[in-house]
């Protein structure tokens, strides 16, 4: 008896399922969707222009095409593109969002918020700022594409072509910085390369969703070191030697002294020597690395402080030392006057396959 019941129910369940299937909703197979990999956003005279880099899948080869459209909001533009395309445009696999520099300088908040709100755009999508106009960059991406426009994604991807002078900033990080009292971000800046597809030019400081300044590639490396985004394998060029960073560790401690913030940072580096100019001793190499990195950090910090952009997220260290009201004013009241005492502690692990003077 009970057996019958369950079977009956099971059948009913299957039938309703089939009925539901017959009233089929909007399911589109993957080959009927266009999956843009890169989205470019630019603004001209109050109207947005969106460029999409879409790989054109076919069994034998993958081409890329560029679609562009103008309109007053990004969503409206996407609707327009969708209407005109033979496939459904699906932003599920969007990997990189490129902003033109002018857009970034005007402010990204609006677009970032709509990207975060959107169901299809993953909040892991990378962001980048194009130094020049978007079109040449897209053309370059298209002409040099060999595997469906994945180059720019590989450029940023950690297990592909990423290098420590490039920042990875995802839209959720930008969104977080827009809502945070104590943390700003940098967004990598790129331009089309001469021989390579893309050339990294450093990064842009973003404060509250607005671009306020730039840092160069070497400072970007330092930024990555500071963020703890594994900089292994990095080659550091100095006057007297070239070294490769094998391991790094950063310790920070923060204090409030008489109402002003003070920080002590220690960077522990393990390096191996790749090349020497002349015949420096280990002690000299150590000293040089320390000096070079410290001055660079201080310089970067000063630029950032003058723009009140806390790109290193130093305010995070004062979360328990300042009240919430004071934290709210961190950027204006404390950060510009904060002092940092930075020392690099270097261990020269080895000198490669040649001996070096100790």
């Amino acid at each position: 008896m009970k057996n019958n019941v369950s079977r009956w129910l099971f059948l009913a369940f299957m039938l309703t399922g089939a009925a539901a299937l017959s009233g089929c909703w909007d399911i589109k197979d993957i080959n009927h969707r266009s999956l843009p990999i890169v989205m470019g956003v630019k603004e001209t005279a109050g109207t947005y222009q969106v460029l999409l880099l879409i790989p054109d899948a076919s069994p034998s080869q993958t081409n890329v095409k560029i679609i562009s459209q103008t309109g007053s909001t990004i969503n409206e533009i996407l609707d327009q593109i969708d209407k005109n395309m033979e496939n459904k445009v699906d932003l599920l696999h969007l990997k990189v969002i490129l902003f033109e520099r002018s857009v970034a300088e005007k402010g990204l908040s609006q677009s970032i918020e709509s990207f975060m709100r959107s169901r299809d755009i993953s909040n892991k999508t990378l962001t980048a700022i194009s130094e020049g106009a978007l079109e040449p960059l897209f053309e370059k991406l298209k002409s040099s594409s060999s595997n469906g426009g994945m180059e720019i994604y590989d450029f940023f991807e950690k297990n592909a072509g990423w290098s420590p002078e490039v920042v990875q900033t995802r839209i959720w990080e930008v969104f977080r910085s827009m809502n945070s009292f104590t943390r700003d971000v940098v967004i990598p800046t790129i331009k089309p390369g001469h021989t390579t597809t893309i050339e990294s030019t450093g990064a842009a400081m973003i404060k509250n969703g607005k671009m306020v300044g730039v840092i160069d590639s070497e400072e970007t490396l330092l930024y990555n070191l500071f963020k703890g985004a594994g900089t292994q394998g990095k080659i550091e060029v100095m006057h007297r030697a070239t070294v490769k960073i094998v391991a790094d560790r950063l310790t920070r401690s923060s204090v409030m002294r008489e109402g002003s913030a003070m920080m002590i940072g220690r960077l522990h580096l393990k390096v191996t020597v790749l090349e020497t100019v002349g015949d420096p001793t280990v002690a000299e190499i150590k000293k040089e690395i320390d000096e070079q990195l410290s001055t660079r950090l201080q310089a970067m910090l000063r630029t950032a402080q003058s723009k009140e952009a806390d790109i290193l997220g130093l305010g995070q260290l004062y979360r328990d030392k300042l009240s919430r009201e004071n934290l709210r004013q961190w950027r204006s009241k404390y950060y510009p006057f904060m002092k940092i005492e930075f020392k690099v502690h270097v261990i020269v692990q080895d000198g490669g396959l040649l001996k070096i003077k100790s």
Partner: protein
Amino acid sequence: MLLPAFLKSRQARDMDLFLHSLYLAEEPVVLAGYTSLIDLPQTIVMLRQLALNADDAGKPLFDRDSGVGTPLREPGEQEVLDALAAGDALICSESGDRWLRLVPVGRTLSRALESPTTENVLRGAISAFNEDLDTNVGLVKKHMSSDMLRIRSYTLGLSQRRKTVLLYAEGKIREPLLRSIVQKLETLPDRDISDLQALSAFFGFSKWSPITRFNTSELPQEAAFALEHGKAVLLLDRFPFALVLPSLLSDMFVSQNDRNFPVIIMFSFRILRILGVLVNVLLPGLYVALVSVNPEVLRIEIALSIAGSREGVPYPSLVETLLLLLVLELTLESAIRLPKTIGPTITMVGGIILGQAVVQAKLVSNVLIIILAASTIANFTVIGFQNATALRLYKYLLLVLSAMFGVLGLFIGIVVICAYFSYGNTFGIPYLSRWKAGRRYG
């Protein structure tokens, strides 16, 4: 009508019925039996010897303790026919008033012991059951030489009498299980038990359930192992498989033969089989779910290559998958029917020609071919053909659900199947129970 006369008239209908007159212990008698079942010359030689022995001992031939056979007291027609049909010989006095039933020298109508044909053994006893019930019981006894082994025999069916033997290990089997099996068997059905469907209807199992309630095995060692672990084994005459009750989920993954390997290898085998089941059941559904509903889950590289390979395929992924699955199922089914000599040909036709051509003709994507091939191979990592076939069915439920709800549908399908598994039970023993000799865990 006198019985000899009845048998004579019967001879007209059964051409293999013989009525042989002869003298045994100086008494004229008629020997009756089926030539198709009895080796007549050998039987006569044996009879003469027996009669001589009886005579020497001074016992009359038709006496109970003459040692020749069992006397029948005024047997009816049906009784005589039953005895003959069972392959026994009858001796009847000239006058037809005294009858003796005896076990003759039979013809060999069974295979010799062979290696199993559906279950390969790599390391372990290789002999398999055959059609002869006594041989089978003997095989089990050989594999389990223990005084705990109990054997009960039943004859089931009305027109077709089918001998059935129930084996169990006293003290190891769970009492309630034994009680319910014996109770069922003792009701002696009025239906013929010609196949397992009839048997499972007789036991009151659900007719439609894809979960097998009998775990079948061709190997005496598996049967002995089951007995030692407190399960019951049914042997049917003319059925070269042991039926193990109850059947459990673990039977899909655990074989006694594994224990002939080191423990770590045993566990790797089992994990492999579990993975096999998951791969087999999930992969086709996953493909459909990812391709048509949730492409965002795929990495972009895979997404692009699948999109590329599906370019030009005219129908949705569900139909695509169903089509190819149909071809695969047809191949599997035909491979069973095919003579062994043609088998390799169909492999070539199915594998190389169809597989290659179907992609080039853009009927299905080549990623799907890989997926279905993997799924089909994985299907047979499971122990027991009956389990493998059941798994083939579940795949379709998941396929349909995935086509509707994507990955969500796939997972919910898993839940439904799990729930169905947990509902299944054999004589009150849940399909999912973990079996330990004499005890039961939830």
